[in-house]
């Protein structure tokens, strides 16, 4: 009798009703005999040690190494996805390594990584694995970082955030239309997730991938910046990232350096204190400057930190407090 039952997954706003033997939209949460199961728990498809700047996180332990992992699957289907080969893959057709949560913590110790990132695809769809690993990691003194689109319901998000130290959360656009047409999602849950993460005391940085013709207009960028400032605060770091033609958007050109520079100017004009540019070389767009005295605080070249002058969380020149986790 039980195996004939449908299940509903209430993890994310999609609220998939899943038929017996089928999976939800994310491809990795299945209905097995009337019970919801995560097929990727303990099975990462990708694991590497990255610089934390690659997440990107510029205000969290600069220059540190971070053990980074993903399983296949995603609850969004962005037409521009940069990692679509794993995010849109079926687990049945993919390869993964067996690595239970305890082993992740052990690897962090072995490779001297102070933190662990759940990244590349979206940790929301491997929620249980992320949650269990994050809990163990924190007990062992390892910090937890999420790199996510933030498309999750409030209750599971709140529970996960208790074990998270930092998050880079995408704000992919500032209209519901963009989320519906490009990402197969909606805007409001993402905005709510951002606000809740910030209110929970998690260090939050925001990434906006600028796609030519779709979300690159000055008014759209200005509106996004005003929303960040009003809801997350002027000190929230924002990364404008350049798009490369991938997946279902190979017909669009890459984002120009001029567009990214212009987005940075708009954001600074809107009163944001820490604005960065990613995926293109930009001297000013990769350094951290003090919002008070405008002095150079962190000099970077790509993902490498050349100079780190933040001392005890403050500017060494004017003593202004600098938003971040510095030790």
């Amino acid at each position: 009798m039980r195996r004939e039952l449908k299940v509903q997954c209430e993890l994310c706003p999609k609220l998939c009703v899943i038929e017996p033997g089928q999976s939800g939209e994310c491809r990795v949460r299945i209905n097995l005999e009337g019970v919801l199961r995560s097929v990727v728990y303990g099975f990462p498809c990708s694991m590497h040690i990255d610089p934390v700047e690659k997440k990107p996180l510029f205000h969290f332990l600069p220059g540190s190494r971070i053990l980074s992992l993903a399983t296949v699957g995603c609850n969004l289907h962005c037409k521009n996805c940069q990692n679509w080969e794993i995010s849109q893959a079926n687990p049945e057709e993919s390869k993964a390594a067996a690595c239970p949560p305890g082993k992740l913590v052990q690897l962090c110790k072995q490779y001297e990584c102070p933190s662990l990132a759940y990244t590349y695809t979206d940790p929301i769809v491997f929620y249980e694995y992320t949650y269990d690993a994050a809990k163990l990691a924190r007990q062992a003194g390892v910090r937890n970082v999420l790199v996510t689109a933030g498309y999750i319901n409030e209750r599971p998000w709140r529970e996960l955030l208790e074990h998270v130290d930092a998050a880079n959360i995408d704000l992919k656009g500032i209209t519901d239309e963009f989320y519906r047409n490009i990402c197969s999602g909606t805007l409001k849950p993402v905005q709510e997730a951002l606000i809740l993460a910030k209110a929970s005391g998690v260090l939050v940085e925001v990434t906006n991938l600028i796609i030519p013709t779709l979300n690159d207009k000055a008014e759209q960028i200005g509106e996004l910046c005003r929303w960040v400032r009003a809801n997350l605060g002027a000190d929230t770091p924002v990364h404008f990232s350049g798009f490369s033609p991938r997946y279902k958007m190979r017909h669009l050109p890459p984002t120009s350096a001029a567009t990214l520079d212009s987005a940075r100017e708009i954001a600074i004009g809107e009163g944001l204190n820490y604005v960065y540019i990613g995926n293109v070389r930009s001297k000013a767009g990769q350094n951290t400057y003090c919002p008070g005295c405008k002095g150079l605080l962190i000099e970077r070249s790509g993902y490498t930190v050349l100079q780190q002058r933040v001392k005890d969380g403050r500017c060494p020149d004017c003593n202004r407090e600098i938003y971040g986790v510095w030790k």
Partner: protein
Amino acid sequence: MTRRKFIRKLVGAGSAILAGGLWLAKKAVPRKFVRGAGLGKYPGSLKDLGDIDNQGKWSG
């Protein structure tokens, strides 16, 4: 058939229809979950962890 017998049969049939309706409704409403238990085995193929001490090719 007496009036009393007819009413008894009517009530019996009504109860059976109600029970059947409830059973169908229960089947139609999905069971709700937030968390899913792990499967313990991977549906795809397994690989070694390999050398992890290098930068990932994926964005993020």
